[in-house]
């Protein structure tokens, strides 16, 4: 897998720092599973985090507080059930190679062939992925070879990770493992490359939800 489009420093830093919501983090972590060079950049950021932790100046220690805290810790260790041994790192299971990496595969509940696609029209399909955060939409998209990505209006940030096939837009060609970050300032129209359907993970700010059925019906017309 030759990856040419990577995660930006800003986004990776938010992930390294624990400041990125679950939906965006699924795309970032799944790219990291495929990309040793982004993992190396992540390690540098976490090392900087470690130094920030190390650099915290502690007020002159209140000895009795510290003793009390240590006693509480000891009691907790003594009362803890015998530690479950950390499972020995299992070797990669040879044979059946999975095509969806973790953490994405667990969110789907299986591999690509297990996906229960829902039609979007014009030969495209999607599969919404549930997360704890309703403000962020996470889904798989399957775009037929040579066709554009449908219903492509979004406000805010959009992350796309290619899993299979490829697409092209003004930023270039995106193949398996490639990661695209865009926002509302970018007017792009991705088109799946000919030859193979393109499957990607798409994360966007969720479209505004309106309670009224009538507003929901005209929402696409208003472009909101």
């Amino acid at each position, binding site marked *: 897998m030759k990856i040419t489009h990577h995660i*930006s*420093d*800003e986004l990776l*830093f*938010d992930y390294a*720092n*624990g*400041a990125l919501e*679950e939906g965006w*983090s*699924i795309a*970032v*972590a*799944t790219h*990291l*599973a*495929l*990309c*040793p*060079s982004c*993992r*190396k*950049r992540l*390690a*540098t*950021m*976490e*090392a*900087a*985090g*470690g*130094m*920030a*932790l190390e650099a*915290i100046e*502690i007020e*002159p220690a209140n000895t009795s507080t*510290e003793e009390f*805290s*240590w006693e509480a*810790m*000891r009691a907790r*260790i003594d009362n803890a059930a015998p*530690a*479950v041994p*950390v499972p020995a*790192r299992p070797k*990669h*299971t040879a044979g059946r*190679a*999975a*095509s*969806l*990496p*973790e*953490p994405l*595969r667990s969110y789907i509940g299986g591999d690509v062939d297990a996906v229960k696609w829902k039609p979007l029209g014009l030969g495209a399909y999607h599969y919404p992925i549930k*997360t*704890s955060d309703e403000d962020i939409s996470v889904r798989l998209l399957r775009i037929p070879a040579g066709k554009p990505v449908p219903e492509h209006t979004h406000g805010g940030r959009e992350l796309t990770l290619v899993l299979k096939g490829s697409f092209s837009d003004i930023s270039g060609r995106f193949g398996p*493992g490639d990661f695209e970050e865009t926002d509302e300032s970018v007017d792009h129209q991705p088109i799946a490359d000919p030859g193979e359907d393109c499957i990607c993970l798409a994360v966007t700010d969720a479209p505004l939800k309106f309670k009224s059925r009538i507003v929901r019906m005209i929402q696409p017309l208003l472009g909101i």
Partner: protein
Amino acid sequence: MISARGRVRKLEKTVKEPDKDELSACLLAVGAGKDIQAFEVLFRHFGPKIRAFMLKRGGNRQQAEELMQETMMMIWNKAALFDPARGSVSSWIFTVARNVRIDAFRKTNRPEFDPNDPAFVPDPEPAADDVYEAGQEAERLRGALVKLPPEQADLLRLSFYEEISHSAIAERMNLPLGTVKSRIRLAFSRLRDILGDAA
């Protein structure tokens, strides 16, 4: 830079602060044999820092104490996963503390890659030189961080201490989002240059 007061305080300390090699040895001892004395050294060194770190990221003293205890418990249980060739003790402990906080506040696990997953693309085999360099890297990074321009260093510090995203930082510091992004990029590209990693 050590102030005169800092020096005096250091002299007054009866217990010598463990250095990073000792801390690394302690964490390995906890991992290998559940060594409670080694754990106490880690607890007394990192406990107050983790508590202060949790407090900076929001919440009251009692919550900060609970999250610190939870972090230390996690360190006790998972120390065997620490690999000194992959990073420093403080870096590893930072990631544990960060994840404990996410689990507590977001009520979800942090989405993470799994190195044992068959679809995981492993690192290329490190050259012998790289293994030797892993130990030096922390030192060089420390030197590099000190040399960052103040506006970049402040931004990183504020982000780490308050766990806020780059867009929230932009609002807080009343800076255009583009400026915050470019400072983050400049800071990390500089750190990577110094670490000799052009990735």
